[in-house]
């Protein structure tokens, strides 16, 4: 196959943005995606088979057969899991990846999220560190992401946010009933509620229609393309340039390196399982924190016997996602009006500055609930079967408000991705092995946020509340997976530099959640896209055909 300037592995939040930026700047690009190009047409609205709930499998990949992972629990027991099983930490394998199926919250991280160590100091047992880039460095790229992907919302009422140089391009959707109930309660408490920024059209934007407020939102491909992901924004733009080719069902095996250890392209299995070679001047790894780490670790070379970029054993380390915590309130009057996307109101009062805690998290009302999903929301003590269970479903379903938030976690070295040499996928490639747990501070922050969510619900009139928190220190990752190819200035304690370039090899970049030093107390998608613009800007400015301008 014809050699190109850049081959990008993974068409998600990071890879999609890089493909577009390089293509519009005249570089030839091949974008490889292991999944398919899925649309709402071939992805039926199925509450038991989707990214949010994979009880009967998953409609956006990867296939349940042939894509196992090994999961090791904190006591050392290992098991082989399928993509639809708990612990696998799946992210959609399709063009757009998580941005095709997410709920589309489009958060900027808080300025302090980039300097956690200097703000709070490193707790024992953690590898907490500052990012080598600041909020101010990334701000113009946050703007670019918000305007190119299309974000609606209104964070004018959020005094805790970092300064923004451009407003959001679209107004928020009208509030739901629970939004209005929560808004007045938060204001009475002296808090600062505002409309969640979402990569979701509230008015026509980018040639796509507005949200029709259906209940098939988070976990599903949007039927009218109102949700903005890379699959319906930047990737089509990349294709329009004529400089970019997307190859789907392309599973990358390894990065190809020459004698001196420089990348020459990638080897991948095509849709017919034939091994192919795509030569390129640049390789951009963007498979998500688990698959990107796996690919680097599976790339062995005389100079990199433990995997590419892994001379100091940092590849795959610091795997983190978010511990979700919060509370549920039961109200006398119906609170639920079944209007998508459900989530609409948030507070950033508790992201930072909480006494005795390092960081915190945003609190928001939860996404729309399909009946089956609500089973796990019933109050503790509800009988698990019989007429009492059925009564509880009827009593609580339309009378509850769920408030949840992602806890910013303290990264730990032992939470990691390895390549398991004994277990192979259907192409014979060693699979990801996930092990370790999480730092106990997540639970301390979690307890605090549960308390705040409870007070909010009580002020709103809840006659009974119950908590949402899992106090087990289980590994987190999931769709918010991050941290495994840390960005840093010191090659001994990080994998890539501040421009997402491997310390060890100058023509390999990692551009996805892997590079996050810490993961914020927010959904990370917009930040991953922003990092995509930031890294692309560097590549475009410095790349001179075969090498970088010094």
């Amino acid at each position, binding site marked *: 196959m014809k050699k190109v300037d850049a081959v990008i592995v993974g068409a998600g939040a990071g890879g999609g943005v890089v493909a577009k930026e390089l293509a519009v700047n005249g570089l030839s690009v091949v974008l490889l995606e292991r999944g398919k190009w899925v649309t*709402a*047409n071939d992805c*039926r*609205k*199925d*509450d*038991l088979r989707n990214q949010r709930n994979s*009880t*009967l*499998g998953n409609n956006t990949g990867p296939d349940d057969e042939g894509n196992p992972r090994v999961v090791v629990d904190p006591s050392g027991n290992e098991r082989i899991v399928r993509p639809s099983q708990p612990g696998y930490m799946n992210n959609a394998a399709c063009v757009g990846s998580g941005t095709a199926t997410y709920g589309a919250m489009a958060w900027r991280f808080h300025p302090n999220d980039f300097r956690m160590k200097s703000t709070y100091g490193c707790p024992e047992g953690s590898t907490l560190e500052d990012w080598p880039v600041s909020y101010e460095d990334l701000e113009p790229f946050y703007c670019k992401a918000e305007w190119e992907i299309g974000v609606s919302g209104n964070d004018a009422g959020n005094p805790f946010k970092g300064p923004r140089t451009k407003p959001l391009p679209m107004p928020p959707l*009208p509030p739901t009933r629970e939004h209005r109930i929560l808004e007045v309660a938060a204001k009475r408490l002296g808090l600062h509620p505002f409309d969640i920024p979402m990569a979701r059209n*509230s*008015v*026509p934007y980018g*040639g796509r*229609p*507005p*949200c*029709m*407020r*259906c*209940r*098939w939102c988070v976990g599903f491909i949007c*039927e*009218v393309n109102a949700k903005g992901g890379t699959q319906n924004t930047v990737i089509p733009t990349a294709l329009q340039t004529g400089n970019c080719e997307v190859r789907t069902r392309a599973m990358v095996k390894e990065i190809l390196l020459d004698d001196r250890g420089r990348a020459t392209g990638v080897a991948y299995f095509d849709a017919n399982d034939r091994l192919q070679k795509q030569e390129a001047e640049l390789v951009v790894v963007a498979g998500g924190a688990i698959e990107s780490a796996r690919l680097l670790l599976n790339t062995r070379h005389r100079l990199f016997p433990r995997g590419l970029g892994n001379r100091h054993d940092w590849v795959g380390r610091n795997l983190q996602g978010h511990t979700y915590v919060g509370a549920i309130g039961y109200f006398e009057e119906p609170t639920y009006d*079944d209007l998508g996307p459900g989530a609409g109101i948030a507070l950033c009062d508790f992201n930072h500055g909480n006494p005795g805690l390092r960081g915190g998290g945003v609190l928001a009302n939860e996404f729309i609930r399909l*009946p*089956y999903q*609500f*089973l796990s929301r019933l109050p503790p003590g509800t009988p*698990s*079967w*019989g*007429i009492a*269970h*059925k009564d509880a*479903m*009827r009593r609580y*379903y*339309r009378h509850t408000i769920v408030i949840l938030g992602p806890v910013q976690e303290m990264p730990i070295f032992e939470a990691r991705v390895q390549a398991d040499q004994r277990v192979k996928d259907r192409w014979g490639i060693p699979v990801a092995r996930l092990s370790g747990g999480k730092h106990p501070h997540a639970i301390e922050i979690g307890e605090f946020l549960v308390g705040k969510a409870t007070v909010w619900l009580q002020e709103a009139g809840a006659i009974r509340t119950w908590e949402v928190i899992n106090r087990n220190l289980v590994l987190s990752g999931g769709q918010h997976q991050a941290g495994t190819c840390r960005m840093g200035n010191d090659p001994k304690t990080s994998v890539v530099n501040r421009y997402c370039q491997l310390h060890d090899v100058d023509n390999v970049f990692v551009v996805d959640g892997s590079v996050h030093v810490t993961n914020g107390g927010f959904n990370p998608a917009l930040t991953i896209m922003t990092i995509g613009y930031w890294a692309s800007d560097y590549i475009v400015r410095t790349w001179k055909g075969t090498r970088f301008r010094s």
Partner: protein
Amino acid sequence: MNRRRFLQAAAAATGLTAASCAVVPRGRSLNGSEMATLEAICEQIIPADQDPGAAWAGVANYIDRQLAGFYREYRPIYRAGLAEADRRSGGSFAHVPAKRQKEILRQMEKDETTKAFFTLVVSHTMQGFYGDPRHGGNRDYCSWRMLGVPPSPVRGRNQYDLTGGSRS
């Protein structure tokens, strides 16, 4: 009163469970008597009252279909569990009175040997009752109607022209 309400009322009046009113046909994975036992168990897990229960909703059909597909690995545990429920009923679980059925299930929920089966059947019953009808249960979206969630209207696909800015 529609037919469903009538049958429910009749069943309630005579103290019979819906499952014991009719012969249950064989399924894809389970035979007729296994299906009858399964349906009676499901109906105890989500009984009919003013709203339909698991039997009417077709939950046994949902489970049977999954046992032929995504849940095929659970077939042996179902076979054994259903046989055990029948054994504890002295013949057919579906034919003992509802009160006795509840006692048997409460015991199976506790016993080490049957606990795993019972947990599985509870969780699959919930899926079949509250999940999408396309998988064989939740007939006529009965659970969604019960919760006040009307089924989505049938929509064409790629038939929209919302670019004019309609705001629902």
